[in-house]
């Protein structure tokens, strides 16, 4: 028999790839920190070549870099000049609007060695985007604007697709890849990067994305669909106070209409999350976050009607289930110490297929 082809024996189509990770959008660096928490896979799994079939990965992230200052920025300049090829650009933080003022900048990183001028984040995007194999937006700020794009903000902040255009394609034909979350769920981020590395290696087809440019396998379901408190909703059994183990939809949870897998995946290796552990879903993965979900601690406007409707049916279901639950909580009546066997055992009927085994 021919030995099957395995990834460990197959050189990747692209041998080495760089990841240029910008945290200099309007951000809190929380997406980088979150990603250091990933274990499925971890950053070091990818960087140290722990997964078969992948290209060698060189990560350039300011929070983790060995280099400082100019030594660090040289990779940015090389990438912009086409001398660091191929690379994947990761953006963290929202993109400010630099056109609403005549001078200065909202966000910048490093300095132009020729002019001594600071290089704005937007300028870096303009320089790097045409050269990148793919762009990944980490977190809700970079994807859709997020907290810093809240109503009343002074910077005119927006997500990258608003800045580059939703139809933007990389030189390799990839759309922007959005991994929202405030912050990004650690394994969602690393798994998306892993997929792209498989794609770069020639091992996977085009990454499947939805209209909001999210990986479909991560954001195709709602919080509610994955929530282990969903059955409380089904039974119209709602929490009226925080600290209750029941469905939180009447005290501010937006789970039924929010695309996110945190209730399924948990936060760290299956632990934690949001409504599954008592935290209302405030819609932090959504393009409408935060404004469309505030004030966070009030019930969503649709919740009153939907919970009233489910109340009629759910109340009945809960009563019926309670009856069945009491029944199945009792052992069968033939478990006893009496002198007579009452299990229904009848040896003479053995093996004649009448169901009395």
């Amino acid at each position, binding site marked *: 028999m021919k030995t099957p082809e395995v990834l460990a024996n197959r050189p990747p189509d692209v041998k080495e790839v760089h990841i240029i990770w910008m945290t200099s959008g309007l951000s809190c660096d929380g997406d980088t920190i979150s990603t250091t928490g990933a274990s499925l896979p971890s950053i070091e799994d990818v960087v140290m070549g722990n997964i078969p079939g992948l290209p060698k990965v060189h990560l350039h992230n300011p929070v*983790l870099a060995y280099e400082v200052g100019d030594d660090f920025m040289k990779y940015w300049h090389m990438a912009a000049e086409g001398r660091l090829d191929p690379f994947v650009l990761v953006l963290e933080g929202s993109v400010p609007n630099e056109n609403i003022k005549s*001078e200065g900048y909202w966000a910048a990183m490093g300095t132009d060695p020729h002019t001594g001028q600071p290089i704005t984040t937007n300028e870096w995007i303009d320089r790097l985007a045409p050269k990148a194999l793919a762009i990944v937006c980490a977190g809700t700020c970079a994807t859709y604007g997020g907290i810093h794009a809240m109503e009343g903000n*002074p910077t005119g902040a927006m997500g990258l697709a608003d800045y580059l255009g939703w139809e933007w394609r990389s030189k390799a034909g990839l759309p922007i890849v959005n991994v929202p979350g405030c912050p990004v769920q650690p394994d969602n981020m690393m798994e998306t990067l892993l997929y792209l590395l498989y794609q770069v290696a020639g091992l996977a087809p085009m990454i499947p994305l939805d209209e909001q440019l999210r990986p479909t396998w991560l954001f195709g379901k709602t919080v509610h669909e994955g929530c282990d408190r969903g059955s409380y909703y089904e039974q119209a059994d709602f929490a009226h106070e925080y600290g209750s183990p029941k469905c939180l939809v009447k005290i501010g949870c937006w789970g039924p209409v929010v695309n996110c897998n945190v209730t399924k995946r948990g936060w760290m290796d299956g632990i934690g999350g949001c409504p599954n552990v008592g935290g209302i879903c405030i819609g932090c993965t959504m393009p409408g976050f935060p404004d469309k979900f505030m004030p966070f601690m009030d019930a969503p406007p649709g919740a009153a009607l939907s919970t009233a409707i489910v109340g009629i049916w759910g109340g009945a279901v809960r009563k019926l289930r309670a009856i069945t639950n009491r029944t199945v909580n009792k052992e069968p009546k033939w478990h006893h110490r009496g002198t007579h066997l009452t299990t229904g055992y009848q040896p003479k009927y053995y093996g004649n297929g009448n169901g009395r085994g």
Partner: protein
Amino acid sequence: MAEAIATKPRQTTPGKSGQIVEMSWDPITRIVGSLGIFTKIDFENKKVVECHATSSIFRGYSIFMQNKDPRDTHFITSRICGICGDNHATCSVYAQNMAYGIKPPPLAEWIVNLGEAAEYMFDHCIYQDNLVGVDFCEMMVRETNPGVWEKAKVTPAPHAKDHGYRTIGEIMTALNPFEGEFYRKTLQMSRVTREMFCLMEGRHVHPSTLYPGGVGTVPSIQVFTDYLTRLMNYIEFMKAVVPLHDDLFDFFYEALPGYEQVGQRRILLGCWGSFQDPDVCDYNYRTMDEWGRAMFVTPGIIVDGELVTTNLIDINLGIRILLGSAYYEDWQDSGKTFVKHDPLGNPVDKRHPWNQTTTPKPQKRDFDGNYSWVMSPRWFDKRTGDHLALDTGGGPIARLWTTALAKLVDIGYVQATGHSVKIRLPKTSLKPEVELEWKIPKWSNAIERDRARSYFQAYAAGVALYCVEQAMKEVLAGRTQTFTPFKVPEEAISCGFHEAVRGVLSHHMVIKNRKVANYHPYPPTPWNASPRDSYGTPGPYEDAVQNTPLFEENGPDKFKGIDIMRTVRSFDPCLPCGVHMYLGNGKLLKQLHNPTAFAPLAKK
């Protein structure tokens, strides 16, 4: 696209030796956020003669928050910081509890304490050995101080039996990024501690289960068992971590005589206290003195080694926000006075955060004038009339120092003695009980800031062990309530005091018409990263870097600035916390970086 305007090259008066070189590092990596350090270095005398610290990202929190529902403030302020967002959320919840006049059930307080302890354990862990540690790793030391590396290779590690590395050189190798054994172990431990955090507060770094009035965490036996078993693994890890760092840091004093001067500054430390004792804390401003002193990390202010106060009311009333080198309009004569007197009738200064009005005034950066968006928080010492530029030393050194001197904490696993803090780590699978003792050091310098961080990891583990026992007692006694209902009042003033991982954190709130009328968070980084204030006093980073001697063996051509990096990183900079202020409505902004690395200015 708008062009930024550079500051003119600075005229520099050459020192006696002549060669003053302007050098900059932008960005400083392995910290959180954007920080640029601009220095002038006298290479002949191996000294930094001048330092300015700048930042480059602006977002606008104080303004977003106006007129928002006060119940949204902990969700929003969490997003100020991506590594200690939960400290903000917690501090905001403390301030909200005061404003709404509520006290959460004791179990909720134990849960918050356990979450915050896990945050300290996580954050110090990853920062100490995955970020700061790289400054002490083999790769770095070989590059900056080959002579020190040669010595390290043959210097036995005194605590080798505790951590397993025979020489200092082996410790340095274990700290190499991604490849080093200890680096990798620490990164893994930073995940275990984040799992502990998520058990209590739902998600890291922006928690999901914190609310004013308590928590949404379901207090099952399982949740505390899951926490405890992970905690015991961390405690075993601490029994190696603390001696390992003692060996490493002591070696630097030995290998480089005079290293104690690196990053040294006057002992001016602030700590706002951490871990509420639910038996005492009622969030009433009038009794804040009492419940502040009951915290398991004692609040306090230390001036030249003397503990000036442990009273949170005194601490609160002494806070002053100065201008001087920051791009804002002054509010002294124009701004609204929201709070004339505190609830005890004490007068509240116009420069206090309750009365701050933030009006940005973008302008060119001028190192002789205004050059930062960070204001200068100071503490008014009424004994002397000084506005003190307190630092936090990155958090742990100030926390351990105030706690040690105050001699108030004694919870079985941690105990303050008046001159030290003792941490008792019980028996674990492979190691017997260990007592660690952090003693008040001679200096407030880079090495001692870093050393304190390791000890505080163990301290936080000790507090966690105490709190998990208390939480279990509540659960086993059937007291499982975790939430106290409340109503938002028409009007209120309130404050929250806490310790963010890297030091003092306060949130000041004014509520009018059930909406936020004023909200000013003051995290540690404005204290540490502040520029020269109205009295000309430099901020702590600047102060600590200036006059720091340089021990790096490289000259200007290959200079890494390692001693400067160690100084700056000893404060655990977190720039998103430093600059969160409003920037003006489309006004110009010319805050600039003008790095001119390797540009000698010497014109003899």
